[in-house]
């Protein structure tokens, strides 16, 4: 078995054992944000597109899934699916408009559209406005596994995460992923080889938005509510931070980055209050100045240097 396969199996084992050592809801929160960051990284790290509006997809899916489960009475699985599809559709709409621009203009268009979506959620009645959509029942998986039990829910969330992580891994290492990397590396060259880069970017955007949505819907299920925070631009910024801190364009970077941020926020929230924002800001600055490749990126670079010295 390859080293890589062993590493994945060890991670899986850690994931399976985690709820016996750590409060399951915290681990679930980490998993949801890790999935969010991994979906975001597909766009930033592997296509070279910086979206500054990804919270819109996260939040939209949370609202749609919550509404579908609570008001329409859909089974939990279908509710999550509805949220994911809604986020993908929204991603298609936002992506179609945004990919006509590049660089900072692309980021600005995504931010502007995400703000419009945010104000829609603020005004719309089904979201509960400032109060949010509260009291969404977790329901039962396949109709008989009670998800109000944290441990049951944990393994469901872990399964969702593993599936989505696998899908992202597959996408990165697919014929499609090769073209995405080519676009990231040299877009004019990819065009001159005959690729309609807009179509590739759009598909990447839709995949990323849908998976960000799956993360949002799952988080809603864990906490039984969806609020405006889920769609706020603060969160769009936070996912950028998580991805860059962990190492964009690496498979594990977003996972590490989001774990660090979520755990820190969790630990510090009661102790330092609103200083959390300052601490997060400082971490970001230090990271950008000293560890440009992010935590995982620096480890990989270090490892490669060691190999180089041996050879």
């Amino acid at each position: 078995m390859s080293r890589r396969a062993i590493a994945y199996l060890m991670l899986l084992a850690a994931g399976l054992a985690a709820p016996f050592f750590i409060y399951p809801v915290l681990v679930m929160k980490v998993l949801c944000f890790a999935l969010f960051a991994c979906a975001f990284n597909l766009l930033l790290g592997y296509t070279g597109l910086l979206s500054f509006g990804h919270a819109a997809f996260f939040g939209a899916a949370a609202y749609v899934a919550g509404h579908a489960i609570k008001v329409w009475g859909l089974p939990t699985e279908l509710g999550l699916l509805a949220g994911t599809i809604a986020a993908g559709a929204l991603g298609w709409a936002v992506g179609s408009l945004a990919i006509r621009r590049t660089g900072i203009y692309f980021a600005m268009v995504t931010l502007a559209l995400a703000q419009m979506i945010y104000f829609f959620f603020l005004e719309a009645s089904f979201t509960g406005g400032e109060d949010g959509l509260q009291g969404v029942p977790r329901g039962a998986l396949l109709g008989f596994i009670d998800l109000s039990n944290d441990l049951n829910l944990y393994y469901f969330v872990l399964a969702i995460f593993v599936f989505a992580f696998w899908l992202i891994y597959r996408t990165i290492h697919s014929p499609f992923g090769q073209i995405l990397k080519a676009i990231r590396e040299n877009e004019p060259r990819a065009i001159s080889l005959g690729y309609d880069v807009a179509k590739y970017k759009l598909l990447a955007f839709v995949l990323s938005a849908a998976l960000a949505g799956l993360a949002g819907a799952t988080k809603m299920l864990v906490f039984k509510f969806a609020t405006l925070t889920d769609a706020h631009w603060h969160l769009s910024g936070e996912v950028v931070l998580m991805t860059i801190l962990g190492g964009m364009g690496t498979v594990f970077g977003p996972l590490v980055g989001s774990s660090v941020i979520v755990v820190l926020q969790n630990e510090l929230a009661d102790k330092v209050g609103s200083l959390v924002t300052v601490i997060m800001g400082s971490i970001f600055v230090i990271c950008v100045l000293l560890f440009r490749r992010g935590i995982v990126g620096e480890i990989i670079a270090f490892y490669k240097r060691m190999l180089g010295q041996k050879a």
Partner: protein
Amino acid sequence: MADDYILETDALVKEFKGFVAVSDVSLKVRRGHIHALIGPNGAGKTTCFNLLTKFLEPTRGRIRFNGEDITLEAPAQIARRGIVRSFQISAVFPHLTVLENVRIALQRKLGGSFYFWRSDSTLSRLDDRAIELLAEVGLDSYVDMVAVELPYGRKRALEIATTLALDPELMLLDEPTQGMGHEDVDRVMQLIKKVSTRRTILMVEHNMKVVSGISDMITVLARGAVLAEGPYAEVAKNPLVIEAYMGTSEEAAQA
């Protein structure tokens, strides 16, 4: 007969906010030729290439490829017709391996480039062809190297291999020997000559040794307009051309 020309332009014009970078260029490129586009810095050569491949929108004028009007087509569409360009600044995919660079080009005709659920190991069936192409440009011993680590001359060779992977009918090369040492220049020149069988090449080139050595026809641009046209011996004697080149006129006249 019009069919003798693979590429024709009709009074092509490009203005940038009033500044005319390309003015009334009517170019005819004969099938099977190595056609050189020369001219002093800022003459509008690269702009011409950008117009022909639609990286820029012409202000006026028409472009015909194999007799068909392609003026309104998108850049990727033009590439799929068989007009493939290189760029003045090196155009590799820097953080992909040499093999992957060529495979990106080969992958297009294989289809399935939207299949995100498939493993990229399905691309390994392109490896043999990719290595063959790399051998053609002398890069077969660099297959697994990351492109960014290649020496400059080898990068340009990689670009040519990638372009050849599409088997283009018309290849546009923007200064393929720029910034190279003597040996590299000779190698790339031989390479261009070799791959020109069965296809047409339009190249921008400053090195007069290359231009005189392998081109069948030369068009001289100056300040956006065509100054002279003809085989090397004829163009090199043209006083207008010598004057336009000034400093380099000696070299042009000697070679």
